[in-house]
């Protein structure tokens, strides 16, 4: 007890302690400025990274701001007429087709992507040859630029199958294009499901298949959804892969063998025709809004995934 009296520090409660530490570590703006004065190179580095960040922010604001400010006044009701004519330059058929095409592509790509991820994570033996071949080909597919997909789709569907420019040709091309994205996100989601879930399920007598569909896949749903959202973003923005597969006809497709255009292709057509700058601005606004919504959904999903872990 006496010794304690000689050491006043021991009388501090933990809160006092933290207060004191904070006071020692506190660096005022003035201290900082002084330390930079002595180390001009450090200040230079700080200025450099801040400048880079400012440039990025500036580009972002300029891009979004310019298109919204110039585009919103150009959004007129006739742009949303049901039928496209050269007079109203309506984007409605393209908007409808963008939804149809996204939906059809996902219907094809999601089961294949999810199932192949299930095979890779749940069934394949570690270090099997097939797995490494699938890995390599998936990485290759992910790196191929849209224009090469477009050429391939043109050669296979439009040319070899003699389909011409068709909705289904565009859909099949896009489905191959988004497959790597869906596979990768699903794989990551499946890997994040703890083994104890599987063991528990096996322990209760469930078979492998039941475990996959009842236990593993449901836990991986947010991850699978984030893959779907990412793919949607890619489909909505795609142009080069669609021009020579689905063509550029500005109408809602009658059947899967009709030519049709998505909104991004519509915008490309407006720009190459060169007569419709105002409508192009308006189209850019609509595309941007779609992308913003898709991004918002995707970051919300990412947050729920983090929370679940």
């Amino acid at each position: 007890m006496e010794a304690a009296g000689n050491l006043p520090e021991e009388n501090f409660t933990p809160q006092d302690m933290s207060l004191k530490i904070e006071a020692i570590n506190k660096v005022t703006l003035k201290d900082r400025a002084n330390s930079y004065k002595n180390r001009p190179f450090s200040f230079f580095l700080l200025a450099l990274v801040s400048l880079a960040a400012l440039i990025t922010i500036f580009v972002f604001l300029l891009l979004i701001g310019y298109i919204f400010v110039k585009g919103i006044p150009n959004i007129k009701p006739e742009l949303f007429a049901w039928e496209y004519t050269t007079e109203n330059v309506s984007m409605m058929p393209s908007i409808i087709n963008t939804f149809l095409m996204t939906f059809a592509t996902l219907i094809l790509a999601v089961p294949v992507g999810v199932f192949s991820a299930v095979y890779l994570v749940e069934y394949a033996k570690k270090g099997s040859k097939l797995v490494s071949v699938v890995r390599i080909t998936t990485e290759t597919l992910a790196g191929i630029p849209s224009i090469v997909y477009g050429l391939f789709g043109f050669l296979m569907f439009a040319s070899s199958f003699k389909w011409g420019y068709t909705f289904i040709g565009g859909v099949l091309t896009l489905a191959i294009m988004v497959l790597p994205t869906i596979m990768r996100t699903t794989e990551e989601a499946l890997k994040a499901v703890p083994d104890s879930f599987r063991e528990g399920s096996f322990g209760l007598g469930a078979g492998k298949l039941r475990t996959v569909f009842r236990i593993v896949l449901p836990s991986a749903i947010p991850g699978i959804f984030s893959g779907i959202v990412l793919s949607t973003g890619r489909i909505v923005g795609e142009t080069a892969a669609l021009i020579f597969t689905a063509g550029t006809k500005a109408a809602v497709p009658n059947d899967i063998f009709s030519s049709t255009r998505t909104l991004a292709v519509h915008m490309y057509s407006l720009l190459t025709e060169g007569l419709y700058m105002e409508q192009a601005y308006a189209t850019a606004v609509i595309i941007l809004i779609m992308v913003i919504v898709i991004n918002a959904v995707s970051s919300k999903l990412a947050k729920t995934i983090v929370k679940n872990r």
Partner: protein
Amino acid sequence: MSGVRESLMKFVFLIAACVSILSTILICFFMFVNGVPAIAEIGIFKFLFGMTWKPSNGYYGIFPMIIGSIYVTAGAIVVGVPVGVLCAVFMARFCPKKLYSVMKPAIGLLAGIPSIVYGFFGLVVIVPVIQEIFGTNGKGVLTASLLLGIMILPTIISVSEDAIRSVPESYYEGALALGDTHEQAVFRAVVPAAKSGILAGVILGVGRAIGETMAVIIVAGNQTIIPASVLSGVRTMTSNIVMEMGYASGLHRQALIGTGVVLFVFILIINLLFSVIKKER
């Protein structure tokens, strides 16, 4: 009964896994089978190094386009990499929390904006600025490089940021303990340790820039000659395909597919580089 179902579904999963292998084979097959004969007919040397592209007169030299693709990609690297890497350093090590919560989604959005919208932005914002400053028509290597540099920013920033963040904290603390300032510690200890990850980001950016089509076609001017200066118009391999595929036939069409094959080979080399670097880490 359930045994049958088990093995049936296992088979279905296996087939699904093979779809990506099949797709890759199909893409390679269709590209090479349609492109290579044309290259052989024109003559591989004449095709790759021929200086004139005049399909109507039977000249199929894509050298100007190869050079064009390399020029604009190099330009994009010069514009995009310094800004991107420094911005990644800022985000990983300097950014206040509040600013970060705004910047991160902003960069995600930049990554999600379609190339056609970037192209439009280049046409209505960058082209007039270049016109104003240099008095040219505004379309050319410089404009395309600036635009591509902006387009590869999000890729470079997010990959580099991840790389910088995955450097162990002890590197930074050790440097501080040796008397470095925050900036010195970041640039002399943390960033060098992340350099292979940053390089991977740069290579991804190169892949995106060389394969980019719709944005480049709008702002590059598309002349089929080797550009004399950074202000002259330029045509890349990608834009060559899109511009002429619509009406081409016969050998002309095959030559365009041949252009696609050359582009494809470029991309495969870049992918290979990327996976080598990823393995080294």
